[in-house]
């Protein structure tokens, strides 16, 4: 046929190979971990790493979170000189720490300091799950305890964003005792009238969930975040049954009375600002 000569229509359909589908150019593009759609990283960042399509909340790196939450140039970092050693001489531990330091640009899995949210001053600790799964070793415990003490000293609130798989096995019982240390610090802070807000982000499990994450005055969480004490696999092996898909999600914890509120990331700043303003002397007027 004559029109075939001029037509530009392809006679065959091109189906991208399985590999091409999953190969996302590093940096420029980002695949949503929830719906697997591909977005420009820039677009995803503008949306605070929340998928525009399925609302999946991707983990935020500590500094990303601080920058999106606190008023511009309002924050200062505390105790950044604290660094992890290898107290038990655990085989391979130093290499693992070094690798994650290079990967994340952080010295450890938490950034602490103070800043303002809508002009209201608060101390903070922001955990980063990309550093050894946010597992809690001595440095994380020490930085958090110091930040709480500092907040007590300065009589300002303390907000913590938790993101942790639990204890840092390579530090043995030193790791477990960070739960006790931070709890004593929280108790002192709380007795002095300090306001503590805990925001649980994905994942908040094990020792972190069973200590400071669960003893704030207010417990918030991001949608879909995994929150719980024991891991799903361990529980399934123990009780020999399959757990529902929504088990240990933020929504599950809300339903079971463990959270005050699940807050979308785009509403987090305003929610925290409001909570802070409820606790300011003179209420709204100040």
């Amino acid at each position, binding site marked *: 046929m004559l029109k075939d000569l001029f037509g530009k229509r392809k006679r065959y359909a091109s189906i991208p190979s399985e590999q091409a589908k999953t190969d996302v150019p590093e940096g420029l593009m980002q695949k949503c971990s929830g719906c697997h759609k591909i977005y420009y990283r820039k677009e995803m960042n503008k949306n605070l790493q929340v998928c525009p399509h399925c609302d999946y909340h991707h983990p935020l790196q500590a500094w990303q979170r601080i920058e999106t939450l606190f008023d511009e140039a309002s924050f200062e970092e505390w105790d950044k000189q604290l660094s992890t050693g290898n107290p038990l001489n655990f085989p391979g531990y130093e290499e693992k720490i070094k690798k994650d330091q290079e990967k994340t640009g952080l010295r450890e899995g938490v950034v602490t300091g103070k800043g303002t949210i809508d002009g209201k001053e608060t101390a903070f600790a922001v955990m980063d799950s990309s550093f050894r799964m946010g597992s809690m070793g001595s440095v994380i*415990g*020490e930085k958090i305890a110091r930040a709480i003490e500092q907040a007590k000293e300065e009589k300002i609130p303390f907000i913590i964003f938790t993101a942790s798989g639990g204890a840092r096995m390579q530090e043995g019982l030193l790791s477990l005792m960070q739960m006790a240390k931070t709890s004593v610090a929280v108790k002192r802070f709380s007795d002095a009238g300090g306001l503590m807000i805990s925001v649980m982000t994905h994942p908040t499990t094990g020792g972190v969930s069973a200590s400071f994450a669960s*003893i704030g005055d207010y417990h918030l969480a991001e949608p879909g975040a995994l929150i*719980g004490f024991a891991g799903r696999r361990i529980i399934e092996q123990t009780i020999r049954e399959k757990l529902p898909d929504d088990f240990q999600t933020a929504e599950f914890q809300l339903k079971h009375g463990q959270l005050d509120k699940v807050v979308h990331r785009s509403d987090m700043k305003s929610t925290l600002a409001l909570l802070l303003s409820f606790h300011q002397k003179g209420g709204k007027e100040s």
Partner: protein
Amino acid sequence: MKQVLDFEKPIVNLKEKIAELKRFTSDSDIDLTEEIRTLEKRLAVLEEDIYGNLQPWDRVQLARHPERPTTLDYIEQLFTDFIEFHGDRSFGDDAAIVTGLAFYKEKPVTVIGHQRGKDTKENIRRNFGMPHPEGYRKALRHMKQAEKFSRPIICFIDTKGAYPGKAAEERGQSEAIARNLIEMAGLTVPIICVVIGEGGSGGALGLGVGDEILMLENSTYSVISPEGAASILWKDASYAQQAAESMQITAYDLKKLGLIDQIIPEPKGGAHRDLNQQASYLNEVIDHSLRTLEKYSIEELLEKRWEKYKKMGSYQIL
């Protein structure tokens, strides 16, 4: 007959041989006294060699020994008039934790401890000493009561861990443990915690914040079970022995790390070999600790507790 662990088999074999020779000597005309004496000397050396050089994994076996004395055994030995109380007042009663009142040297104390069973039936009833949230909440209820009536608290720690179950999660296992940590941090009465068997992670710590942390010589205290650590770190639970060594979970390791205050000796071969002797070792240390702690004012007590936990950790300042 006590259950024999692998590492103590040479001792048991030799003991059997000596007993056999003794029987033979008394039943027949042949006198083997000389041989028996030689073997007994060898036994003493062997016992010294084996029990004096217990490896971390040996202690794990001793800490988990089915005949190892439990909280209720020590309560019977150390206190008088013990009366057990039940329930958390909001959900139920957890038999994996026992709580109650007793007299210690004529003075009232609150006693709390994990409780395992010694046989399958009791273990099922007590959930192998692995508490649910209501267990921690029952414990907390009694701790607050101890505070109200100004009596010291003595906690016995002996658990593989808090129970990893569906219902436990639904009822807030994390919150229950976390709540105990923060409340124990501020209780205005002396708290003595003794690890008598396995100190398993957060489930142990939920009864473990106090002024004096004691450990029996062959007990263990760990952030995760050696099997759990091995399967995560090396993807193979059979590396448990290696994990037990790397994680430093024995009383001696933890004393060196400054995480516990005192090690309580055990009778040769472990606590289960002689409960009376074990209880008397324990009694001595508890008595001394209580006397010391009772001298402090409430402010001093709480300040010392903070100082104690504040120091725990190891880091570098660059």
